[in-house]
């Protein structure tokens, strides 16, 4: 059968399917587009399709040929209906036979997406109220946006401004343009969907990193940022708008990224990276992208990824220049401390606030970080030797400076990079509960509910996380914050504190002797 054809009579899927049968094919996937009874809130009675056939046939054939070549399938075909159609009728049919199912599904998806996007077919809907209109052709819709005329679309102005039309069900994400790369393919896309990335800092570098990783379909993204949006940020962080000033960066970024790609699970950590939380954060992700603007955080992240054996992408900018460095937990790879054994002090060499910066500089470096992260997740960086890449956007020069492991840097030695000094006490003693409240630590009662029932008045600790619920996983101990953990005699609280310290939480303490040791 023809790769792409039009039919003015009812489509015959059974007949088309037979034409694609092949002894070498192990599977068959098809898609059918049906005429539905409503569109954008209006009841549809019937519709008509009209095509610019000469052009449409050529473009349709090209799309099917592309699908066969890109996905290596056995046969593929598409038939599109023209003329008047009733509700429930078949409007378009796509079928693909292939050795394996993955390619069959992918090619089928590719064909229908491309046909809807590229083939000049117009649809006229007739509504029950007697009205009618040419609608829903993606080419027309795109043209209407370009020229700001023709169709009227309502745009919301809230959190999801830019999310565009009100769809009953949001359209599926389309990764065809990256799947088309032979090195990516459907297998690569699946790797991205299964991957998780922690982005520390949602500023000038973090914004493009988050946007491109979300758009690429990385399955889970964590955002660590404790700052609020400032008006002076917007020139280099255009994910945010002027109406967002004063709102928390991580939360606003999460809303925007959700509007961009609903496939991605976004986890908001509205906090600064600290010695107390960084290990717990890092351990939950496959890769870390470091996008802060200060040395303290950069070295904190460096030490945490070194401890957790996770890859990380570092970058920083200064005026018109920037540097990018990939860290991999391999014996010969240098870490940030290998390069800069003397951790510099903040303020010594300037940051964006004092030195100034043009927006596209962090945007370029952030895009490079996103690219390095995708390469690592897809395994496209196998031949890449450790290096610091410098970029000068005034001269448009990049330089790849080969870096080596510094033999004096003992970053493999956990004691050398431990987040918590060994001297930090595990237990704290207080005379009274009032003293404990005044310590500045948040008090957490981990006794069981029945134990609290017998508390005398004045001994109420508002935060209650029963140890049994923590152990069984019904509750999670928060990763951020400074806590004094309390039980009846200080035994359970001490073991929980030991556990939390081991997972990297530095600022947790156990009440020595428990409630029994307090003077009432």
């Amino acid at each position: 059968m023809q790769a792409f054809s039009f039919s003015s009579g009812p489509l015959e899927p059974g007949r088309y399917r037979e034409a694609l049968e092949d002894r070498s094919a192990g599977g068959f996937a098809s898609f059918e587009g049906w005429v539905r009874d409503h569109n954008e809130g209006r009841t549809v009675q019937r519709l008509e399709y009209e095509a610019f056939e000469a052009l449409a046939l050529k473009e349709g054939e090209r799309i099917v040929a592309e699908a066969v070549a890109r996905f290596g399938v056995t046969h593929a075909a598409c038939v599109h209906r023209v003329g008047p159609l009733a509700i429930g009728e078949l409007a378009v049919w796509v079928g693909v036979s292939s050795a394996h199912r993955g390619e069959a599904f992918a090619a089928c998806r590719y064909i229908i997406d491309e046909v809807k996007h590229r083939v000049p077919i117009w649809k006229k809907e007739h509504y029950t109220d007697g009205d009618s209109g040419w609608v829903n052709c993606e080419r027309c819709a795109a043209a209407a946006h370009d020229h700001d005329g023709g169709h009227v679309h309502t745009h919301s102005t809230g959190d999801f401004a830019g999310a565009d039309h009100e769809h009953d069900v949001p359209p599926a994400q389309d990764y065809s343009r990256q799947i088309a790369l032979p090195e990516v393919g459907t297998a690569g896309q699946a790797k991205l969907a299964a991957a998780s990335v922690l982005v520390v800092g949602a500023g000038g570098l973090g914004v493009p990193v988050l946007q491109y990783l979300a758009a690429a379909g990385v399955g889970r993204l964590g955002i660590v940022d404790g700052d609020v949006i400032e008006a002076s940020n917007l020139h280099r962080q255009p994910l945010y708008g002027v109406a967002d000033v004063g709102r928390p960066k991580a939360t606003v970024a999460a809303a925007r990224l959700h509007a961009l790609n609903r496939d991605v699970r976004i986890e908001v950590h509205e906090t600064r990276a600290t010695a107390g939380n960084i290990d717990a954060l890092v351990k939950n992700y496959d890769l870390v992208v470091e996008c802060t603007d200060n040395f303290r955080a950069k070295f904190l992240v460096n030490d945490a990824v070194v401890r957790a054996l996770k890859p990380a992408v570092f970058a920083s900018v200064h005026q018109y220049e920037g540097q990018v460095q990939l860290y991999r937990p391999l014996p010969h790879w240098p870490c940030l401390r290998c390069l800069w054994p003397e951790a510099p002090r903040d303020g010594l060499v300037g940051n964006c606030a004092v030195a100034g910066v043009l927006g596209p500089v962090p945007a370029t470096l952030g895009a490079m970080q996103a690219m390095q992260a995708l390469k690592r997740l897809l395994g496209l960086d196998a031949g890449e030797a450790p290096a610091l890449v410098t970029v000068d956007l005034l001269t448009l020069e990049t330089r790849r400076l080969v870096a080596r492991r510094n033999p004096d840097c003992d970053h493999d030695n956990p004691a050398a990079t431990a987040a918590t000094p060994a001297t930090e006490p595990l237990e704290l003693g207080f005379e009274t509960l009032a003293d404990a409240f005044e310590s500045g630590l948040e008090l957490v009662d981990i006794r069981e509910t029945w134990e609290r029932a017998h508390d005398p008045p004045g001994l109420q600790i508002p935060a209650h996380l029963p140890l049994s619920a923590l152990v069984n996983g019904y509750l999670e101990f928060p990763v951020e914050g400074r806590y004094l953990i309390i039980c009846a005699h200080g035994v359970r609280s001490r073991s929980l504190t030991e556990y939390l310290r081991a997972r990297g939480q530095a600022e947790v303490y156990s009440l020595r002797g428990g409630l029994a040791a307090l003077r009432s």
Partner: protein
Amino acid sequence: MNRIEVQYFAVLRERAGVSRETVETTAATAADLYDELAGRHDFGLPRAMLRVAVNDEFTDWSHALAAGDRVVFIPPVAGG
């Protein structure tokens, strides 16, 4: 005298007023060259804080220079 091509980054570029220059020098090592240029441009950054790369590879300050070498001085950068 060796003719060396020198490139500066970040604060060093600002202090030097150029991103690159070609210098005629008797400096035997990368350290000697930095000290010489730091005096000329008033860099004010101690050598211990910087890294030097010769011919696109990070190297030690004791690296012996040869005519035609490309030397890059890189301070740590924190902005983001």
